[in-house]
C-alpha cells in the first residue's frame, strides 16, 4: 500500500518531484526573508542602542516601531 502510494502508479517521480520542488522553493524563500528581517531588526536595534541616552529616549518616545523592535530584540537575546 505504501509502495503504491509512493509510486503513484508510475507517476511518482513527476508528482513527488513537483511537490518537493515547490516546498523546497517555498522553504528557501521563507528562510531568506526571515533572515533578512532579523538582520535589519538587529541592525536597527543596535543603532538605537548606540545613540546617546537623550536621543534614545526621544526615538523610543516618538516611534512605536523603534520601541517594538527594541523590545522584541531584547526578548531574543
Amino acid at each position: 500500500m505504501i509502495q503504491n502510494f509512493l509510486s503513484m502508479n508510475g507517476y511518482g517521480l513527476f508528482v513527488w518531484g513537483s511537490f518537493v520542488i515547490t516546498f523546497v522553493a517555498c522553504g528557501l524563500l521563507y528562510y531568506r526573508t526571515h533572515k533578512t528581517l532579523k538582520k535589519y531588526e538587529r541592525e536597527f536595534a543596535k543603532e538605537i542602542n548606540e545613540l546617546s541616552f537623550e536621543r534614545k529616549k526621544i526615538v523610543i518616545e516618538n516611534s512605536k516601531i523603534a520601541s517594538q523592535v527594541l523590545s522584541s530584540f531584547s526578548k531574543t537575546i
Partner: protein
Amino acid sequence: MFKILNLSNIFYWIEKLIGFINSVFFILLLVALSFALIFSPPDYLQGDSVRIMYVHVPSAWIGLASFSSISILSIAHFIFKIKNIRLITKSIAPIGLMFTCLALVTGSIWGQPTWGTWWVWDARITSMFILALFYVGFISTHKLIANENKANKISSIIAIIGLINIPIIKYSVDWWNTLHQPASIKLIGESSIHSSMLMPLLLMFFVFILYCALIFLMKYKTEIIKIKKKNIKRI
C-alpha cells in the same frame, strides 16, 4: 480613518497577523496535502499525474494575481503618489516571481507524462515565461538603480506594460491552438472540474495564499524598518 494607515499601526498589526498565520499554517498544510495526495481521486485519463495540478494551478494563479496587483498599484502610485504603495509592490514582486517560476517548472514536469515533452513554445507557456521576465525586470530595477525615484518610475512603467500580458496569458488557450488545456475552473459559468478535485485544489490555494501573506508581511516589515533606519540617521 487614516490613523489605521499609519506605519506604526500597520507594524503592530503585521506582528499580530504573522503570529496568527504561524499558528494555523501547518495544520492547514497537513489537511490540504492529505486531500491532494491521498483522498482526491486519480484522473480517468491522466491517472495520478493529475496531482501535480494541486501545486501547478495555485502557483500560476498567484503568479498572475501578484503581477496584476503590482500593475494596478503602480497605476495608483502614478496618480496618488502614495509612498506606501511602493513598499507593497516591492514586497509582492519576489513572491510573484517565485510562484511564476514554480508554475513553469511544475507545468514542465506535468507536460512530460501528459504531452510527452518537457517544454514547448506554445502561447500559454511562452506568455507565462514573458511574465517571469517582467518580474525579473521589475525586481532588478530596484536592485540595480540606486536613485529611488528613478527606480520607482522605471519599475512602474515595467509593471504597467506587463499588464498587457495578463489577458494574453488568460485567453491564450482560447485565441491560439495550444497543447495547454482550456480553463476548467470558471468564475462566471459552470466549472468542468469535479468537486472531489476542486476542493483539494481550493484548499491548496488557500494554504499558498496564507504562505504568501506570511512572506509579504515579513518583507513589508523589513521595508518599514529600512525606512525607520534611514530616519534615525537624520536625528
